[in-house]
């Protein structure tokens, strides 16, 4: 099951560039939350702070607190521990090119030293079914490389890979922006199904996509969160003038 995320006074820097300023936010459990905003507004940096990926950049720095469930991720645990509880799907599909489809899905477990063959088989099948890819690949699980799939299939493979470590939260950084419309709609259907089991945070440039998949939407601008509310309210009756300007296409 998913857990809620409580963000308090979060600030983040790239070198001297203050990319996130005083973010306070509650992301509800088992819902999809969309983050929108123009390029460079800090929404990607924000999701990367939720699984401590931001600090893998040598000049990245974070202050403030993020609680995922009852865990303060910046004080109570190591980065690798939190990344097993918070899965991430990236903008471009990034399957491991030397691995088969099966090994891609099993990678998270195998590389963390887990190797019970029968259980792995079950996890791989369940994850691929959850990411709606099972029927397309079940016959060449170990024969084909992950890189031999189409772009849309690769992205669903990456979702399966993230699901296989049984996370509570799924972060998606523009998961459909490199895909064609058909693949995009498959990914959106998937998000719809997955949000009953996981807390999903999705960054998107596509406002229709945010409106379609998310219950809550946050609008980011210049490193600050301008507005956070129900998706319906953000798109029909935003409180802030800047949000209205953005969603009506006056800038961005």
């Amino acid at each position, binding site marked *: 099951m998913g857990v809620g995320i409580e963000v308090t006074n979060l600030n983040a820097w790239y070198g001297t560039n203050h990319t996130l300023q005083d973010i306070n936010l509650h992301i509800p459990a088992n819902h999809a939350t969309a983050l929108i905003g123009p390029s460079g507004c800090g929404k990607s940096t924000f999701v990367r702070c939720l699984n401590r990926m931001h600090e893998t950049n040598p000049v990245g720095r974070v202050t403030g607190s993020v609680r995922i469930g009852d865990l303060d991720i910046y004080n109570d645990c190591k980065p690798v521990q939190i*990344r097993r509880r918070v899965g991430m799907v990236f903008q471009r599909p990034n399957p491991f090119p030397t691995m088969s489809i099966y090994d891609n899905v099993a990678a998270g477990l195998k590389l963390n030293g887990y190797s019970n063959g029968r259980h792995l088989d079950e996890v791989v099948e369940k994850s691929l079914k959850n990411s709606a890819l099972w029927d397309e690949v079940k016959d060449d699980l170990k024969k084909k490389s992950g890189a*031999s799939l189409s772009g849309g299939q690769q992205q669903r493979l990456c979702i399966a890979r993230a699901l296989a470590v049984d996370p509570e939260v799924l972060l998606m950084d523009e998961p459909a922006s490199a895909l064609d419309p058909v693949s995009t709609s498959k990914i959106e259907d998937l998000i719809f199904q997955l949000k009953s089991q996981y807390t999903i945070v999705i960054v998107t440039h596509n406002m229709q996509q945010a409106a379609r998949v998310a219950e809550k939407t946050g609008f980011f601008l210049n490193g600050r969160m301008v507005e956070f509310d129900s998706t319906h309210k953000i798109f029909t009756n935003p409180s802030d003038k800047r949000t209205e300007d953005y969603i009506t296409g006056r800038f961005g």
Partner: protein
Amino acid sequence: MNTQSSNLRSQIRAVTDHTVTGLAIAATLIVIAPLIAIFVYLVYKGASSLNLAFFTQIPKPVGETGGGMANSIVGSAILLALASVIGIPIGIGGGIFLAEFGRGGKLANAIRFTADVLNGVPSIVMGLAAYALIVVPKIPFLPFTGHFSAFSGGVALGFMMIPTVCRTSEEMLLMVPHAIREAALGLGVPNWRSVLSISLKTASPGIITGCMLAFARVAGETAPLIFTVLGNQFWSSSLNQPIAALPLQIYVYAMSPYDDWHRLAWAGSLVLIVLIVVAVSLVRYVTSRGILKGNS
């Protein structure tokens, strides 16, 4: 634009196209011509002296005809195995440090510069260095030192492999997309594990090519062996003794005044080249099995 001038233009384009294609083909031929010429000449000069005795017997004393280079073939194999055991792990380890851990740091820059300089050091100097450092002095607790030995030659060749292996490993690791490393980190995989299981594996075809290049380069080296392994006319497979090696034997025979030895030197050269090709092909075949090929 009228039809005539557009016709002329398309003709000029066609001529340019053919000229450039022709130049590219010519350049390719010039590149492979020496290789083919060498190989054909070696077969012409050496093949006639190849017989069973060449692969089973050791050199005959001066004045007697016949004999073979069996001890040199075995000696070269031992030297190259030792060189690979030293050069490949250290080289790959250095490449991993440069690409994954020391990126942009002062230490990494110093190592990279040193490796490049080492790569340019003439092989005879490498031999002299080994001579001065481990052949002449007896190093306490380090066996095989203090005299001419197979060990010292393997060390000299191994250190010649390090810069090539190190720099190609670095380059190949840097070519591994950042997105793939992030994918591994995002799954909660520790960095060291990601480097070993993801980056190194993804870069492995290129790294293996680098290792094979370094291997093939030192396989034909003669100069570093003169001051270290010395050569041996008899059977020896001991790391503690002077040992025979194909390039050394070829050098000795080619410099001799005897026609029979000249023929053996040609045959030895042919065998050396064929063995290098076989070894490299074998490694490529073995390491390419089990790697799944992606279409994209």
